[in-house]
């Protein structure tokens, strides 16, 4: 018997689309914490619930259809149940979808943790003509059953109360055991007996469950048991048993086990469920007629995505401006308040613009994820994947890969985050790797600058060709990756198409806030650190003696202006020019400038000089920085950079040609995404190795294609 006030832990388990998340949201409200399970990128959602004086920790396990070892989510869910031993499992079951949902239930019941079934969406089941006798179902399964309507929060008090009752009365919990048939049960019995004999092999796992997994040929359990010599004997015995059963049934034991589970479920359902009438999915079917229509489905999807994309950037425009104004105000205020010195420089020139530059995208991120939550919660996302699968599969991607790739045209960071919707790991990684080639919005100002300088008439066409090249490179990369690191086809497409639902505002807002919080955390930690580093590299070593005495030049200008020899506008122009030249000299002397010189031999074959090298390096901080860095290097002040004088300078520079300009555009399109995006990439993949690959893919494409453009162009006499 537990002390009633001791902290308890309850885990939520269930199928995707069972309404698990809305129950979790209702139980925990704003008391949520999203993290990752150690070592994997599966999200771990935890929350707190205070119920009648009990402090209960609620853990939302990943939504799964089963607990085999075939997907990372399934492994995470079963590890959690076995190792962390929650006090109870709330199994959220979609009542209108009972048989399929109970398949997971039969597996949850095999653990030594009490299960309580939440018969969710029971209102929908009722309206579909399903009458579920919950008492009977509860008796047949040996598990308490509580009807709930998750998105309305109905039945949740009773559910938690039932969980507490079950926890406090462990003797009253007798889950039914699936009978796997005489032959299988015989093998199960002897394997479980052998396992029980040497408890060290079990690592705290249940003997019967472990034996069952051995018969299913579960990789993870086989390796765990077979680790030692006595364990190996057991795995060999299991192998013999599997062969015996296979010849007896003419099928894999794993399939027989699944069949028996479904048999058990069918038996229970045929007794506890009465179908009064058969009219289901009426509304959903009608909507589907249009949305997944073989011809119309694709254009409809295109329009919806276009709307989402537009909304993200147009609706976000104003709040982005407000944040920009706020950041620059903060910068000026800091400049005024802080006493001069290195620390103040670091804050004013490093931290505030660095972190601020990332913060400005927060409104876009929030709108984007609100739209995505809307598409997911209504049930449309599954249809979008269905519609896109034909096209994407031919390329070697999954139907759902399309969504992060489209978002990549806006900003790579949120696009990587969106790749979470792909369950299969290699699909997810390939999608993330190629999403970088979807030219992000921050690269556009660079294209505009360069194209404006070299192709004043055909700028639009040139920019379009760059976007197109990005798509071609993405497709080529998918093909290359599928032929090398991720051999084989894209994960087979099988997906539930849940009935359409009207989402609740609450759940949409919670989804949006979750993403925003992750983004803010990132801005506060890694980006803060990185902006300090970049500021350092651009500031040190400091140059105190300049080649030209700019200070006296400026003084001189001011004196002549005072004397009335030149106009005020002329004075300001000259001063800006001198300050720009001084800044250019300063940067050339800094670590970043030296780096530019250092890499010059490497980028020479592409036609780039050290100045373009520095501009490209600074683009790692953020792609927007490339233009302002170029302004600095070419000695143009910030305001002038936009007004076209930088464009003129580039066009008139004898060192550059159209060929070099195009090679530069190609390089900008394909080379490494910015630091902020890479931080997200690391967080989402959880692997430095993948970040390394990303740097390798992007940089090699950029280098090779820019080289081909420049050298090829020279051979053709275009230089």
């Amino acid at each position, binding site marked *: 018997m537990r002390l009633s006030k001791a902290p308890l832990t309850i885990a939520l388990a269930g199928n995707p689309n069972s309404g698990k998340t809305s129950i979790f949201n209702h139980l925990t409200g704003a008391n949520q914490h999203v993290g990752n399970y150690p070592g994997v990128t599966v999200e771990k959602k935890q929350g707190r619930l205070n119920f009648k004086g009990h402090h209960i920790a609620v853990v939302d396990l990943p939504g799964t259809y089963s607990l085999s070892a075939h*997907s990372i989510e399934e492994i995470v869910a079963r590890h959690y149940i076995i190792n962390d031993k929650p006090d109870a499992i709330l199994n959220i079951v979609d009542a209108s979808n009972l048989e399929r949902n109970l398949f997971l239930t039969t597996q949850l019941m095999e653990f030594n943790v009490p299960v309580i079934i939440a018969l969710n969406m029971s209102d929908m089941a009722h309206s579909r003509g399903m009458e579920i006798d919950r008492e009977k179902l509860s008796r047949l399964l040996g598990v308490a059953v509580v009807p709930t309507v998750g998105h309305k929060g109905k039945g949740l008090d009773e559910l938690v109360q039932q969980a507490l009752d079950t926890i406090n009365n462990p003797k009253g919990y007798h889950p039914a055991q699936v009978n796997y048939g005489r032959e299988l049960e015989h093998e199960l019995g002897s394997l479980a007996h052998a396992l029980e004999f040497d408890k060290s092999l079990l690592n705290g796992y249940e003997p019967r469950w472990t034996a069952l997994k051995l018969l*299913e040929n579960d990789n993870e359990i086989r390796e765990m048991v077979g680790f030692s010599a006595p364990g190996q004997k057991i795995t060999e015995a299991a192998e013999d048993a599997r062969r015996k059963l296979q010849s007896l049934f003419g099928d894999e034991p794993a399939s027989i086990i699944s069949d028996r589970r479904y048999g058990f479920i069918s038996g229970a359902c045929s007794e506890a469920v009465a179908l009064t009438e058969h009219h289901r999915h009426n509304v959903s079917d009608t909507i589907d007629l249009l949305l997944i229509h073989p011809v119309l489905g694709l254009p409809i999807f295109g329009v919806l995505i276009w709307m989402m994309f537009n909304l993200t950037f147009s609706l976000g425009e104003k709040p982005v401006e407000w944040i920009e104004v706020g950041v620059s105000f903060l910068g000026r205020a800091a400049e005024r308040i802080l006493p001069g010195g290195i620390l103040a420089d670091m804050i004013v020139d490093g931290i505030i613009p660095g972190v601020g530059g990332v913060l400005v995208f927060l409104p876009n991120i929030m709108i984007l994820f609100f739209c995505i939550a809307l598409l997911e919660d209504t049930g449309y996302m599954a249809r979008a994947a269905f519609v896109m699968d034909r096209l994407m*599969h031919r390329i070697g991607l999954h139907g759902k890969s399309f969504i992060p790739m489209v978002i990549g045209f806006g900003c790579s960071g949120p696009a990587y985050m969106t790749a979470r919707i792909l369950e299969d790991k290699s699909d997810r990684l390939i999608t993330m790797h190629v999403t970088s080639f979807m030219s992000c919005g921050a690269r556009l100002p660079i294209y505009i600058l360069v194209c404006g300088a070299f192709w004043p008439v055909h700028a639009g066409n040139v920019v379009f060709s760059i976007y197109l090249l990005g798509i071609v490179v993405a497709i080529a990369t998918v093909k290359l990756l599928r032929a090398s690191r991720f051999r084989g086809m894209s994960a087979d497409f099988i997906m539930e*198409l849940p009935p359409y639902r009207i989402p609740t505002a609450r759940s949409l807002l919670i989804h949006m806030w979750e993403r925003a919080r992750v983004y803010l955390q990132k801005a506060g930690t890694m980006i803060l650190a990185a902006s300090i580093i970049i500021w350092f590299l651009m500031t040190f070593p400091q140059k105190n003696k300049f080649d030209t005495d700019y200070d006296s030049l400026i003084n001189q200008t001011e004196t002549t202006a005072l004397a009335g020899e030149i106009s005020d506008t002329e004075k300001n122009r000259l001063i800006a020019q001198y300050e720009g030249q001084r800044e250019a000299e300063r940067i050339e002397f800094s670590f970043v400038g030296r780096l530019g010189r250092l890499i010059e031999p490497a980028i020479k074959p592409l036609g780039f000089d050290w100045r373009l090298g520095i501009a490209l390096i600074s683009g790692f901080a953020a792609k927007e920085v490339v233009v302002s860095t170029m302004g600095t290097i070419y000695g143009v002040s910030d305001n002038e950079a936009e007004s076209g004088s930088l464009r003129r300078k580039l066009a008139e520079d004898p060192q550059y040609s159209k060929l070099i300009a195009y090679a530069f555009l190609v390089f900008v399109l394909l080379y490494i995404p910015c630091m902020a995006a890479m931080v997200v990439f690391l967080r989402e993949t959880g692997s430095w190795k993948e970040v390394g690959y990303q740097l390798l893919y992007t940089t090699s494409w950029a280098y090779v294609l820019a080289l081909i453009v420049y050298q090829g162009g020279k051979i053709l006499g275009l230089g």
Partner: protein
Amino acid sequence: MRFMFHRAPMGAIDDSTLSSARVGKIYELVGVDAGQGLRDKICAMGLNSGAQLKIILNSGRGPVELEVRQTRLGIGRGMARKIRVVEVAT
């Protein structure tokens, strides 16, 4: 009872794969030509041997939509070719 014609369907008319199944007809799943991993995965989604499937959408290209155990599933063309079904007389 579902188990009465388990793996030896009585009402078989036509042996084929899901890829060529006709819209509106009801089929019974008789086997999946794939590794255990994929078989487990689709089984967990309600598609085990003996399951009755109703074809909702099959345009000959792209994924197939079907209804099984009161759930709608979308299944890619490649996978549909691996799922053997027989039409059930209705």
